């Protein structure tokens, strides 16, 4: 009964989309870290990274007030004279979407993303998850971050996993979809690549695949980012459909963000160096980017408390 066993299903999927060598991936991404970005190219990269941030708050203690203050920061991250761009989006729980919409208004370019589908576990009936997506979109969400059914993937029920994504695509309507693979629960690079392909085959051009929820031990790393962007590249060259990418969780410093962008520049090329094709799911990152931009302009580092919403202090 090989054909029906989960192992058989995974094996066939790997044969179909190809495997990943973990040592090779780590070697490849180590080279990104040795790139040396200076002066104008650094400033350009920092501003690009800031424009790609999905400014996130996903806590049980979130309130309309906290969300409003986050939205304000998203629209105007720092002194306008410094030229820090607006971030791409704010990312909140579905219950907070209407408060975010109220804070941002309707004329803004900052988008509202919401983590629907029983985030972060996804362990709710499909009907409930779809209702959550629809409610978030109705409240004004421009983007939906869904989690895949990892249980279905790991037990070889790829059809179930893909059907659920299809259903969410439908529930999204005009909203952009981001499919969270939750890489730490998939464990291997082979699985991450395979799950990326399964997701890409049922989502629309311009939709995202995303590394993680930020709620487990291991989040975005250069390694799993590389596996996913190589999957996006291979899928694009094969079908012409360009899928966007969002690493989330664990990217806290400007230096890290630049290294991720170098990976994009050298793997997917210039067409992905914009916030319609690449995002960072992060909260602390934005302030470090601003701090580095300020340093490029003035030549001096400023203390964290000079920046609003600072999460660290002395």
């Amino acid at each position, binding site marked *: 009964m090989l054909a029906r066993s989960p192992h058989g299903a995974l094996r066939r999927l790997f044969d179909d989309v190809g495997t990943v060598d973990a040592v090779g991936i780590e070697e490849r991404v180590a080279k990104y870290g040795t790139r040396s970005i200076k002066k104008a190219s650094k400033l350009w*990269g920092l501003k690009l990274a800031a424009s790609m941030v999905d400014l996130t708050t996903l806590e049980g203690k979130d309130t309309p007030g906290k969300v409003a203050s986050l939205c304000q920061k998203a629209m105007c991250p720092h002194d306008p004279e410094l030229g820090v761009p607006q971030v791409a989006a704010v990312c909140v729980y579905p219950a907070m979407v209407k408060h975010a919409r109220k804070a941002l208004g309707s004329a803004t370019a900052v988008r509202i993303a919401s983590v629907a589908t029983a985030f972060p576990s996804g362990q709710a009936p499909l009907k409930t998850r779809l209702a959550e997506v629809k409610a978030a979109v109705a409240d004004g969400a421009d983007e939906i971050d869904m989690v895949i059914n990892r249980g279905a993937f790991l037990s070889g029920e790829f059809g179930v996993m893909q059907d659920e994504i299809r259903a969410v695509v439908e529930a999204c309507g005009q909203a952009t979809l981001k499919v969270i693979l939750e890489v730490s629960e998939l464990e291997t690079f082979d699985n991450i690549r395979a799950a990326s392909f399964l997701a890409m085959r049922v989502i629309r051009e311009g939709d995202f695949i995303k590394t993680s929820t930020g709620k487990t031990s291991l989040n975005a790393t250069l390694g799993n980012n590389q596996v996913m962007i190589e999957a996006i590249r291979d899928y694009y060259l094969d079908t012409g459909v360009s899928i966007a990418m969002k690493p989330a969780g664990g990217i806290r410093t400007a230096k890290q963000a630049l290294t991720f962008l170098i990976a994009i520049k050298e793997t997917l090329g210039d067409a992905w160096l914009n916030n319609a094709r690449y995002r960072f799911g992060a909260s602390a990152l934005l302030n470090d980017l601003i701090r580095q931009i300020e340093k490029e302009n003035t030549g001096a580092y400023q203390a964290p408390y000079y920046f609003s919403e600072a999460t660290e202090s002395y």
Partner: protein
Amino acid sequence: MPTLTAKKTSTRPARPAPELIFGDLWEFDPSPETADPKLKTRYDLFINGQFVAPKSGKYFDSINPANERKLAEIAQASAADVDAAYQAAKAAYDNVWGKLPGRERAKYLFRIARLLQDRAREFAVAETLDGGKPIKESRDFDVPMAAAHFFYHAGWADKLDYVAPGRRVAPLGVVGQVIPWNFPLLMLAWKLAPALAMGNTVVLKPAETTSITCLKLAEILQDAGLPPGVVNFVTGAGDVGAAVMNHPIPAKLSFTGSTEVGKIIMRSVAGTDKKMTLELGGKAANIVFDDAPLNQAVEGIVNGIFFNQGHVCCAGSRLLVHEPVAEQVLTKLKNRIKVLRVGDPLDKNTDIGAINSKEQLRKITAMVASGVKEGAEMFQPTCRLPPKGFYFRPTLFSGVSMSHRIAREEIFGPVLSILTFRTVDEAIEKANNTAYGLSAGVWTDKGSRILKMSTELKAGVVWANTYNKFDPASPFGGYKESGFGREGGRQGLLDYCKLI
């Protein structure tokens, strides 16, 4: 599946073929390494622990291949200088080094290794200026690996009773060594360290175009307090090399370089009782099967052929691809080499630096022209090259067959010849169908196939799912015209001793 749906898709508006754009949207600013290489304007010979002027009084210029500017003057040795070096080495062996216990020799080797680490940045910059290799390679590979060889062999020096179980070992005496220009400092380290650990003394000649880091290492040998005459460096061109190889004193000769010169040396030592190690050319096959993780294989192929501008004797210069994935691998390779950065070797972002010399650039250009003439399809990215200096774009040749010159002769440059195969046996046959046998690579997800290939490939090193990996503990050397004897590891040490 595509054939079934062909009709349906043809009714949709046609999309242009998807292409990735590797343009100048995000240009990197120059990022040169700024450490001071501390070069002298003139370097003398290093004989008997002293820098001494050549007897001829002649010097030649060493230039920076990245911009053709003069770096320093290097002494031109003559046969008389070589003789003086050998006399010093003999005296040092007879009076000091040969009698010193291994644990004492180890102290010197450890000291050399540490001093080299202390001055790593300085040496990296000097190596890059002199040879044209990218600073990230001299900084992350050449210098640390050179230090690692000294450390490794320092560790052996007091344990030589265990290097050949059941036997005892004794040094040979004086050793003559000649090294090439592709890894000047590293090659120096991996020849010096085992010879010294074993208790031999050395006369060594670096390559004419890359003598500087060798003579800088002489400063470290002085600082380490190495007894005079234990290591002697003579510099110059091929005639000096011939004098080093033909001298009556050395009990062992060790040469790394071209097969052509290796053959001449072999002839000259015929009839003598000198021991010999030759590490010569290569035309390695890098074999990619259809079940390999292709994206990482492509990375390994790039690392295999474009590392150090392809100036690597074990470079994976022949790519053998399984036919079902040949087209896919070629597309991936093209996209990968579009983002390789060719240019100023001192820039920390440079992936491919300068070709070592005008002479080598001429050879590469001629070989590439022959590939085009014989009908192979060439691909080069459109990267800009600096106006001055010796540069060559990374080059792919597809549609290559075994009878092409570019599939048979060593190019020693950033040029990859791509051939295809259908079965495992055909891959082995093609890989072994060469005069050389230094290294090979195998890329597959199937472990049993790796084991089969590694026993059937006639190559000194077989890398599996990786390429160009080195370690002081791992012996390196060839089959057939790639030479004989091993360097590194226990096997390398055995080539520097007699068993008693």
